[in-house]
């Protein structure tokens, strides 16, 4: 008797794990294929999945019955492919010669745009997709009840995998795709038409995502933003398997599908943490994934792409110290003429500025794109929140411990991350960040889980200085951020900062100067983590309550956005970006619900037209203008030998 119960339970669970793996494989195979050939990690792949699900939803409203369902199931991915082809030829193609981070950012902008467009077209609510009667029932296998639809998925997904295998290994185009994936330079030199190949592969990858969405939609539900959940899972799958490797995507899908199913049964609390833990564990042992290899720099000749790279000049002038003091003086006077709303808004801007400037020590100065900064922000905020509410620690010591704990966490995370570079580095920081997020989100006993921490007391500073009021907090944040930003500026202009820039420009050459590259990258990571943690601590004091939302990976995207808006190779750029972002956030949210759309369009325009950012652009113009007026230039700018 016991045995039959076990068998039926096992059957249901195994099939459910396989179904999950099948969905994951459909999505991540397209993702990894695109990465292999185009060298782009497509953030918008989850959005394409979502479109597949929405398309089948819209189609089945009109096409009913089994035949209608089949038509919808086939038509939806083709619709997605069409959109993908437009994206590739209209947008992505323009920036292939740019650094890889710009391609990543463009697809990230597309996520924001497509998500909001879906909300406008289909509405914000969850949609379920009706299945024809023939496939909506359930059957009994070994005593377990299994939906017929699961069986359908388990037939169709391997069928798709076989078709994929046939196309890649048995057709001429497939051979070209594989050749390009393993050695792009060689394929380029052989005269393969890269433009056509890129469009083809991008659209084909989109078909797989769209099919994944169309197939998963009727089993799950679809709603705007479902893509961001899906894409993170797929990232984990392809990074575990090895970026660009299809077998890796298959094994990764099976691993994650199984782990998710087992995790829900055995550790319901920490199911989400488990997949990030697995990813971290695998990358610690095999930094390039199970089947991955260290990436070669896949340079494409500019001639082949028919365009020239737009060089973003990182050589800049530093502004005269007197000029730098002016904004500080103005900020000191602000509370005299404004009310609490603006003081609060500016305090938010100060904190965001510190996050962005610290982030840019990694991106702009060292050349490392971290997608996990929210983790350190969260550690800082929770340090202050927990110490103040649970241990009764006074405000100033609690705030001072925020960067200490954040630095400790950054030291640990950074130790593993700096062994990787480029996209791998970004993905590992993302995974670690999400690991921290899931811990804060689920550990009710310690962090308060998704309720967070409310009523964080703000006690007077030593000497009896009250900082509880909006105005006092304004001045306190201004002082802390002002000093921190000045320290970060010094670091950037120091010999240490010059060395970081050398690492950004040419890692190999830097090693051949006798520089221990990993150690320097690690140090930069810890410094950035510490200041991000300090900003998080300030945030906890300003808001007096925190929730785990502040650690979610979408929060890690904010400093990226700010830095690109303001100017990646400028010191002031991230601060300008913080102003733009925070102001947009405050006003657009009140004014329209489509604020992600606006944000996405701004990011898209910046990446395409002004990759050097607002400050980078102004710098160029100012240098051109003031160069003629020697005395203005001498007074306002001093040439920095180390910018």
């Amino acid at each position: 008797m016991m045995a039959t119960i076990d068998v039926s339970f096992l059957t249901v669970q195994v099939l459910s794990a396989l179904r999950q793996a099948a969905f994951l494989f459909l999505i991540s195979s397209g993702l990894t294929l695109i990465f292999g050939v185009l060298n782009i990690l497509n953030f918008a792949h989850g959005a394409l999945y979502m479109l597949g699900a929405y398309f089948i939803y819209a189609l089945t409203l009109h096409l009913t019955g089994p035949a209608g369902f089949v038509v919808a199931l086939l038509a939806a991915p083709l619709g997605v492919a069409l959109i993908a082809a437009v994206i590739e030829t209209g947008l992505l193609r323009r920036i292939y010669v740019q650094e890889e981070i710009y391609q990543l950012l463009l697809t990230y902008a597309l996520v924001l745009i497509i998500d909001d467009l879906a909300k406008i077209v289909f509405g914000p609510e969850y949609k379920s997709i009706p299945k024809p009667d023939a496939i909506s029932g359930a059957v009994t296998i070994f005593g377990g009840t299994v939906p017929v639809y699961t069986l359908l998925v388990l037939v169709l997904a391997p069928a798709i995998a076989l078709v994929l295998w046939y196309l890649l290994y048995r057709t001429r185009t497939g051979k070209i795709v594989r050749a390009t994936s393993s050695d792009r330079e060689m394929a380029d030199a052989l005269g393969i038409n890269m433009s056509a190949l890129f469009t083809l592969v991008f659209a084909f990858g989109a078909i797989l995502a769209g099919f994944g969405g169309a197939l998963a939609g009727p089993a799950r539900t679809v709603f705007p933003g479902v893509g961001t959940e899906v894409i993170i899972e797929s990232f984990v799958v392809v990074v575990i398997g090895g970026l660009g490797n299809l077998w890796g995507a298959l094994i990764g899908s099976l691993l994650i599908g199984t782990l998710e199913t087992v995790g829900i049964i055995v550790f319901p609390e920490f199911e989400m943490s488990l997949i990030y833990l697995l990813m971290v564990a695998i990358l610690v042992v095999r930094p390039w994934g199970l089947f991955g290899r260290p990436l070669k720099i896949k340079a494409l000749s500019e001639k082949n792409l028919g365009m020239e790279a737009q060089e973003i000049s990182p050589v800049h002038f530093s502004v005269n110290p007197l000029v730098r003091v002016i904004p500080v003086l103005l900020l000191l006077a602000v509370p005299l003429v404004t009310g609490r709303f603006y003081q609060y808004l500016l305090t938010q801007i100060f904190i965001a500025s510190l996050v962005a400037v610290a982030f840019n020590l990694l991106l702009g100065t060292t050349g490392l794109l971290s997608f996990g900064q929210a983790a350190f922000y969260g550690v800082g905020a929770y340090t202050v929140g927990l110490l103040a509410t649970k241990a009764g620690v006074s405000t100033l010591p609690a705030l001072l411990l925020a960067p200490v704990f954040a630095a400790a966490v950054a030291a640990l995370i950074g130790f593993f991350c700096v062994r990787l570079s480029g996209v791998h580095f970004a993905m590992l920081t993302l995974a670690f960040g999400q690991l921290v997020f899931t811990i804060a989100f689920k550990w009710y006993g310690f962090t308060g889980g998704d309720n967070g921490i409310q009523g964080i007391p703000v006690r007077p500073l030593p000497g009896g200085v009250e900082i509880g009021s909006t105005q006092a907090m304004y001045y306190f944040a201004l002082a802390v951020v002002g000093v921190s930003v000045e320290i970060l500026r010094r670091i950037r202009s120091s010999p240490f900062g010059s060395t970081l820039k050398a690492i950004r420009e040419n890692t190999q050459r830097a090693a051949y100067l006798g520089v221990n590259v990993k150690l320097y990258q690690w140090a930069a990571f810890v410094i950035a983590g510490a200041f991000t943690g300090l900003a998080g601590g300030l945030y906890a004091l300003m808001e007096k309550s925190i929730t785990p939302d502040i650690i979610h990976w979408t929060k890690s995207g904010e400093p990226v956005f700010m830095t690109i808006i303001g100017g990646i190779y400028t010191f002031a750029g991230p601060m300008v970006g913080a102003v733009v972002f925070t102001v947009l956030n405050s006003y657009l949210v009140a004014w329209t619900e489509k604020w992600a759309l606006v944000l996405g369009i701004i990011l898209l325009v910046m990446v395409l037209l002004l990759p050097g950012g607002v400050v980078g652009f102004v710098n160029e113009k100012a240098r051109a203008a003031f160069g003629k007026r020697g005395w203005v230039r001498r007074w306002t700018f001093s040439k920095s030998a180390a910018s």
Partner: protein
Amino acid sequence: MGAPMDVLEIRGVVKSFGGVRALQDVTFSVRQGEIRAIIGPNGAGKSTLFNVMTGLFPPDSGEVIFDGERVSGVPPYRIIRKGVGRSFQITNIFPRMTVFENVQVALFAHHRSSRNPVGLARRYPAVASEALGILGQVGLAEKYEQSASILSHGDQKRLEIAISLASRPRLLMLDEPTAGMSRFESRETVELLRTISREQGLTLVFTEHDMDIVFGISEKIVVLQQGMVIADGTPAEIRANPQVRKAYLGEEISA
């Protein structure tokens, strides 16, 4: 004691890549102050040997001794700190930094000031004058303010030599220092290297395709073929070596 010391010794180095033997039992030594060329047809293993000698990857067996100390298996940044400089076949500079900054950052690394995160880089007058001095040596002093990315190919090669010199190496390894240069630029570069070697007692090890340069400046030559040393001697000996003539040089040095 009296005889000049061997500064670099390669002992029985073997290196394979996926079953292909790139280097087979390579053995030779280089004396202090010597100018030594490593030649051989394409695919003979010159670049692999360079990469093994500078720690990019360890040899499968055998060892590399620099200044009496075993350096095989030591990461590049440590080998550089012991006094080895290297330039690359494909120009390897910091493109979006100024010419001055390229050398300045190399000097920071050499003087161990790289780890200072608080002082301002521009407040290092000694480093600045040293950098300008090195740029003067290679003939780039006038262009110190320019972005390295806009320099001509020859100037970029010279800049790379300047970067390598900034580490104040006792042994400088140059992988095709004149690749892609015009004849005039090549001759200038060769003169520059010879002068630096003479004035500073610097040991030079280089690979080169141009036989005029090889026989013009080197004091000893090692010939590699299919990963093996087939000859090791003075230019005259190499010229006279029938194996070398047959295998590789042939007509080029018959005149």
